[in-house]
């Protein structure tokens, strides 16, 4: 018990320290790498909060996508764009805000809301046995549908802001390609497993899609696939397929009592269908966020 208390204390201190270092230090490499480390600590914190679904998503997105995005940007932006910083003012402001928030938070009454009981009561009707998946795909399915729309908008924004004359392809790295040839099939397998596992244990479309996207990021990094210039028609269809499938399933249900309430007798199958479509589309979508932003190799590569 005591070990757990010390563990939580060290982890909480590490989180705050890593975040402060990432935001307040002067060196940009230090900032980005501390932020990657911060993501890993967040993964551990989610495990401690008994939220393995979030831990899975944080691990997959942090290690596979956010880190690569930021490191790629780090090589491209120069220190010249840095404005004059008022860093010394950040800490006093942060301490004040945190103190107020903490005071409010401690004043709140401790009791659990009605939601956990409501979810477990409705779980047998949902078609799956894992409560988080039931919430995501059944009870609050419209959240998930609209979230995909948000991601689609973000990708369109990225494609609009960054225009490449032609797709970027990094120099090929034969040794790393050999590693990628082993890792990528395993990532596909892991994505399939997570998708399947989502019905009865932590996992699901988001985590599976993040792992798929990470596979694409790896392939691009070792020079096996190109970045995106203008996505081809086939790619656009693949991205649209998941949300369209979701809509196609949602449309006939529109007349029922609430939005997107799945009929209990078919819910399990429908959820699996929706999740499979979403995994594919979200995988392309998330990969596209990186592949569209991929910079061409700088002139100064340091190669001799």
């Amino acid at each position: 018990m005591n070990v757990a208390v010390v563990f939580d204390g060290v982890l909480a201190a590490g989180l705050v320290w890593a975040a402060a270092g990432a935001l307040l230090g002067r060196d940009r490499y230090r900032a980005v790498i501390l932020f990657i480390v911060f993501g890993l600590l967040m993964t551990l914190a989610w495990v401690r909060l008994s939220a393995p679904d979030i831990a899975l998503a944080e691990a997959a997105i942090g290690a596979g996508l956010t880190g690569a995005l930021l490191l790629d940007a780090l090589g491209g932006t120069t220190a010249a764009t840095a404005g004059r910083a008022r860093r010394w003012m950040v800490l006093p402001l942060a301490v004040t805000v945190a103190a107020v928030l903490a005071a409010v938070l401690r004043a709140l009454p401790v009791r659990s809301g009605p939601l956990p009981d409501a979810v477990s009561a409705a779980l047998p009707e949902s078609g799956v046995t894992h409560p988080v998946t039931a919430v995501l795909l059944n009870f609050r399915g419209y959240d998930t549908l609209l979230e995909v729309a948000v991601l689609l908008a973000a990708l369109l924004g990225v494609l609009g802001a960054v225009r490449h004359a032609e797709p970027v392809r990094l120099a090929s790295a034969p040794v790393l390609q050999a590693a990628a040839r082993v890792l990528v099939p395993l990532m596909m397998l892991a994505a399939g497993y997570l998708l399947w596992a989502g019905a009865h244990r932590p996992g699901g479309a988001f985590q599976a899609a993040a792992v798929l996207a990470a596979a694409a990021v790896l392939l691009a990094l070792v020079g096996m696939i190109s970045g995106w210039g203008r996505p081809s028609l086939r790619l656009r269809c693949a991205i649209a397929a998941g949300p369209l499938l979701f809509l196609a399933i949602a449309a006939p249900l529109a007349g029922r009592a609430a939005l997107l309430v799945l009929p209990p007798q078919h819910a399990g199958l429908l959820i699996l269908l929706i999740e499979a479509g979403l995994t594919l589309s979200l995988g392309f979508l998330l990969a596209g966020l990186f592949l569209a932003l991929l910079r061409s190799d700088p002139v100064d590569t340091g190669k001799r």
Partner: protein
Amino acid sequence: MLEFASTALMLLGAGFFFAGTVGLLRFPDVYSRLHALTKADNLGVGCIALALALQADGLASALKLLLIWPLALLASAAVSYAIAERAHALGTPLGDAGADDPP
């Protein structure tokens, strides 16, 4: 017997991680720090995975734990190659603390 092996492996794994951290703090250049790091990767994770696989409640969960080891090996091999190659390409010299930094 199983209990004892598990305990020993767990402590050994912790020792490898400790050695890796000390190496990272004390070794003089990027290449030797890379060397220290990969020891922790390869052996630390391996020992812990093996120790927990011995305690696992089924074959499937034991195999899943043991799968983590080769993955860690592969990742560390690929990354240390990539970083060492880049360090070499940038002309990082041997045996000099923080050599990739201009003073």
